[in-house]
C-alpha cells in the first residue's frame, strides 16, 4: 500500500538529477508518499481518499546566485527542464551574501519511524476505526464527526558536495468531535503517533469524547478573569507549539524575539520557565521519531533547549552560526516538554477552585515579540471545586504568553504525544504533560459550544 521512493530509488533519482546540472553546485530534495484519509460527519463516513504524491526540488547555484525549481513530473524530459530552469533562475538572481556553501557528507542519527501497521491503514481499516467512534456515539444519542489521516512517505536530500540523506516514516492521527444533537454539549478526543498500534484504540477515544460531550451540556458562564487552570495535554500542546519556531538565535540577537535580552544579545543561560521543566528535541526519541536532517542535509540531533528552566540553546542557521563564531543548531526533531509524572486526575484533585480546559482553538499571536497569544477554549471547559469537576462552563477567550505561563506552574503531569495542530491532522511531533497553571488570563466569555 505504501507508495514512495525506497532509499535505492531516491539515491538513483537524486544522482540522475545532479548529473543533469551544469551549475557550480546543486542540491536536490525529494519527497514522496501516500496520504490516505477518511472523514465522518453526522454519524456516518462521508469521504475516503488516497493521494499518491512525489515532488523534487533542485537548487542550482551559479556564481553565488541560487534558483530553485520544485516539480512533480519525474520523467527524464521534465527533470531536464527543471534543472535547466533552476540554472536560468540562478543566473537572473543577484548574489546572496548570506548563502553558505553546500554541506559535505554528514552523519545522521538513525531511527525507526516506519511502521507497517500504519502504512497498511487502507480505506477498510480506516472505516473500521471511524465506525468504532460513530457507533457508540450514535448509540448514546450523540452526533460524531471525525477524521483519520495516515501518511507513509520518504524524504531524501543530496547535493553535489557529497551529501545524501534518506528517511522513511509513517504517521497517523485520529480525532473526533462528538456533540449532543441539540448542540448544547461538545467533546473532543484525539491521538497521533508514527505507529498506529501505539495509539489508543478508537473506541477509547470515542468514550473520552462521549463523556466530554455529555458532561459539557448546560454550561453557564463564569466571569472572565484570572483563574487557576488544569490544562489537559492537548491544550498544553496547542499553546506550546508556537515555541519551537521562536527558539531562533538570530531573531533574538536582532532584538525581534521574546528571547532578546534588553540592550542586546539573547537570553541563553537565563531562567526562562519553571525550574522543573525541560524542553528537548530529539529525532530518535521513540515518542517523537522525526526526520533526522533538514532540507539542506544538516543533521538534526538531540538538542536541549531548556533544562531545568534554564534556556540552554537557540537554533542557529549556518550563516548566523558563522557570523557569531558558534556551532549551527538545527530546528527540528519535534518538541518534548517534561518535568512531572502526575495524572490529569491527580492534577484536578489538587485544585481547590479552577477551570479544566480540554483544548484550545483559533490561537493567534497578539504580538510576536512579546510572545502573547490569544484564542478560545473549546469542546469541554469545566469548573473545578475542592478537587472535583463540578459543572461545565461556557467557553472563554484567553490571552497568555505561553512562556510566561510556564513560569506559573503548580503541578506537572506525565508527558504524552498530542495532536497539537488545530487542524487535527498529521503535524509536528509534540509531547507535553498536563499542567496546573495559576493566574491564567481569561478576558471574555464565548457563547459558542
Amino acid at each position, binding site marked *: 500500500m505504501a507508495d514512495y521512493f525506497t532509499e535505492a*530509488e531516491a539515491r*538513483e533519482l537524486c544522482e540522475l538529477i*545532479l548529473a543533469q546540472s551544469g551549475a557550480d553546485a546543486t542540491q536536490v530534495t525529494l519527497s514522496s508518499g501516500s496520504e490516505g484519509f477518511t472523514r465522518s460527519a453526522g454519524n456516518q463516513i462521508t469521504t475516503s481518499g488516497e493521494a499518491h504524491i*512525489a515532488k523534487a526540488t533542485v537548487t542550482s547555484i551559479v556564481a553565488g546566485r541560487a534558483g530553485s*525549481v520544485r516539480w512533480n513530473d519525474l520523467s527524464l524530459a*521534465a527533470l531536464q527542464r527543471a534543472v535547466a530552469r533552476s540554472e536560468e533562475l540562478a543566473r537572473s538572481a543577484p548574489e546572496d551574501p548570506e548563502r553558505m556553501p553546500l554541506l559535505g557528507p554528514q552523519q545522521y542519527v538513525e531511527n525507526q519511524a516506519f511502521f507497517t501497521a500504519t502504512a497498511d491503514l487502507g480505506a477498510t481499516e480506516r472505516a473500521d476505526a471511524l465506525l468504532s467512534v460513530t457507533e457508540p456515539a450514535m448509540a448514546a444519542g450523540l452526533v460524531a*464527526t471525525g477524521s483519520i489521516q495516515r501518511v507513509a512517505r520518504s524524504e531524501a536530500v543530496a547535493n553535489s558536495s557529497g551529501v545524501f540523506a534518506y528517511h522513511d516514516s509513517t504517521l497517523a492521527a485520529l480525532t473526533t468531535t462528538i456533540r449532543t444533537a441539540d448542540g448544547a454539549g461538545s467533546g473532543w478526543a484525539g491521538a497521533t503517533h508514527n505507529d498506529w498500534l501505539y495509539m489508543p484504540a478508537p473506541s477509547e477515544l470515542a468514550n473520552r469524547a462521549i463523556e466530554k460531550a455529555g458532561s459539557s451540556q448546560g454550561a453557564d458562564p463564569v466571569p472572565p478573569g484570572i483563574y487557576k487552570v488544569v490544562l489537559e495535554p492537548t491544550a498544553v500542546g496547542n499553546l506550546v507549539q508556537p515555541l519551537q519556531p521562536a527558539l531562533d538565535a538570530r531573531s533574538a540577537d536582532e532584538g525581534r524575539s521574546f528571547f532578546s535580552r534588553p540592550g542586546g544579545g539573547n537570553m541563553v543561560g537565563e531562567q526562562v520557565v519553571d525550574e522543573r521543566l525541560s524542553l528537548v528535541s530529539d529525532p530518535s526519541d521513540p515518542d517523537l521519531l522525526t526526520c533526522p536532517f533538514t532540507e539542506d542535509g544538516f543533521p538534526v540531533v538531540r538538542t536541549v533547549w531548556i533544562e531545568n528552566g534554564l534556556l540552554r540553546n537557540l537554533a542557529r542557521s549556518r550563516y548566523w552560526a558563522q557570523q557569531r563564531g558558534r556551532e549551527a543548531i538545527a530546528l527540528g526533531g519535534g518538541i518534548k516538554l517534561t518535568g512531572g509524572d502526575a495524572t490529569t486526575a491527580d492534577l484536578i484533585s489538587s485544585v481547590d477552585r479552577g477551570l479544566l480546559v480540554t483544548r484550545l482553538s483559533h490561537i493567534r499571536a497578539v504580538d510576536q515579540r512579546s510572545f502573547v497569544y490569544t484564542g*478560545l477554549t473549546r469542546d469541554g471547559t469545566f469548573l473545578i471545586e475542592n478537587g472535583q469537576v463540578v459543572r461545565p462552563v461556557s467557553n472563554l477567550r484567553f490571552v497568555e504568553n505561553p512562556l510566561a505561563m510556564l513560569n506559573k506552574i503548580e503541578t506537572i503531569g506525565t508527558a504524552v504525544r498530542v495532536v497539537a495542530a488545530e487542524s487535527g491532522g498529521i503535524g509536528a511531533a509534540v509531547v507535553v504533560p498536563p499542567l496546573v497553571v495559576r493566574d491564567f488570563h481569561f478576558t471574555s466569555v464565548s457563547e459558542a459550544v
Partner: protein
Amino acid sequence: MRQTRREFIKNTSLAAAAASVSGRGELLASPSPVVGQSDAALKELCLLALDAARTAGATYADVRIVNVRDQLVTTRESRVTAVSDNEAFGVGVRALMRGVWGFAATRRVTREDCQRVATEAVAQAEASSRAVLRPVQLAAVDAYPDGVWRSPIRKEPFRVPLDEKIDLLLSANAAALGVRGARLVSSSISILRQQTTFASTEGSIIEQTVYRTVPEMTVTAMAADSSSVQSRSSAEVAPMGLGYEHVEQANLSERARQWAEEAVEKLSARPVEPGRFDLVLEPSNLLLTVRETIGHPTELDRVLGYEANYGGSSFLTPPEELIGKLQYGPEFMNVLGDRTQEGALATIGWDDEGVPADSWSIVKDGVLVDYQTTREQVGRISDLTGITRSHGCSHAQSWEWVQLQRMPNISLMPGEDDYVSDDLIAATDRGILIRGSGTYSIDQQRYAFRFGGQVAYEIRDGRLGGMVRDVAYEGNVLEFWNSMDMLGGPRSYFIGGTIGDVKGQPAQRSAASHGCPPARFHDCSVINTAQ
C-alpha cells in the same frame, strides 16, 4: 577521453537508473506523456477515467487534471532571500458509490494511471459505504461539454523577467529603508497559474485557467534601544485574480515610504485607552471581518456539522429558524455571495463540480436569506430558500485534494448614499479609525471575535487625530453588525481578499475576495492588546 563522474552518470547510467527508479514507469516515459499536450489529449484522459469509474460501479464521478505553476520571489532589505519556480501536475478522481464519496489522486497522468485512480476512488467509496444514514444526493446541473474560462489578465506574469520583479522589490525595500527608524523590510511577489480540465459523468468537460497575483511587503521599525518594535504591512494591496498588471498598479515603491513612516510613527503612538468608541473601519480592515463574521458562518457545511472536528460549526443554525428571519444587521446591509466579480480571487467560470458561477444574496436588507452551497448541500435548505440550484461553492486546492464547500467572494455591498471615509469621520464625535488587517481571533462558531488593525487614529469632533496603537475591537457578530450606522458608497468600495483560508481534514487552502466600503459602527468595545 576520460569521463568525469558527472558525465559518466549523465551519459551511461540513464537507462539503468530509469529501469529501477521507474519500476514505477516514470523515466522510461520520456517525454512526459501529457504535460504540454493538447487539450484533446487531456479530455480523452478524463473520459477514460470516467469510464473506469462507471465500470467499477460509480453512480457519479468527476475528474480533474490540474497543472499548477507558481513562482515566488522574496526579499529582505537588499537581499533576495528566495527565488523559486514550482510546477505540479496530477489527476484526481471523485466517485460516488452507495451515497458515499471516494477519492484518489496521482501525479502520474497516464492512461493507465487515470483508469487506476478512478477504480481506486470507487474502491475507497465502497470500503466506506457501511451504515450510510444519509446518502449523498446531488442537485441537478446542466451539462457543459465545451466549457472554457480564463482569468481576465492583461499581462502574463510568468513572462515578466525575473530581474524586473527583483528590481521592483528591492527598490521598494530601499524606499522603505530610506525612512529614519525603519530597520527591517521584507517583500515578495507570488504568482500562480492553475489550469484545470474537469469532466463529469453528467457530460461536462470544462477547461479553466485561473491566475493569482500577490505583491506584498512589511516594514518594521525599531526603537534605538530595541525596546519597542512595530510593523506595518501592505494591507491596502490585495491579492487578486489578475495578471502582472496588478503588481505594477500596486505601486509598492511609491507607497513603501508611507508604510515605513507609519511603522515608525507607531513606535511613539499613544497606547489606546480601552473603552467604548464609534469605529470607522476602512475597507482594508473590514474585509477580514466580513470574511470571518459573515463568510465563515454562512458556509453550509459548517452549519450542518461537517466541519465540527476542525474549522468548527456555525452560530447560524438551524437554518429553518433563521432564513428570512434573522436580523443580521441594519436594513441597508446587503451581502452578496459571488463567483463572477472580475479580478476577484474566487471568481471562476464553473466550480469544481461543474456548476456555473453564481451571484446571490446572503443578507438582503439586513436579513439572512441564504447560505453557501454545493450540489449535495443545497437540497438541505431548498425548501426554505426556494432555490434548488447549487450556488457553485465546490472547490479543491488542487488535484490531490478532494472537493469541499469553500467560501466564494463574500462582499458587503456599498450603500445608496455615496459616502467616503472622510464623510464617516466628519460625522463622528468620538471614535477610532482603523486601517488594514491585524491579528484576530474568533470562536469556532464564528460568533465572539476580536480584530486588530495595522494603524489606528483617534477621531475627535469629526476630525482625524493622532495615531493610537495596540488597538483591537471585540464583540459578537450580531451586536456588531446591528451597530453599523453609516456605510460608504460605490466610490469607496474596495476589493481585498485572503489567500490562506484553511479548512477540511486533510486541511486545504483556498482564496476569496471580499469587497466592502468603509463603515461606521456605533459604541463598540475597544481593548488595548498590550494590557
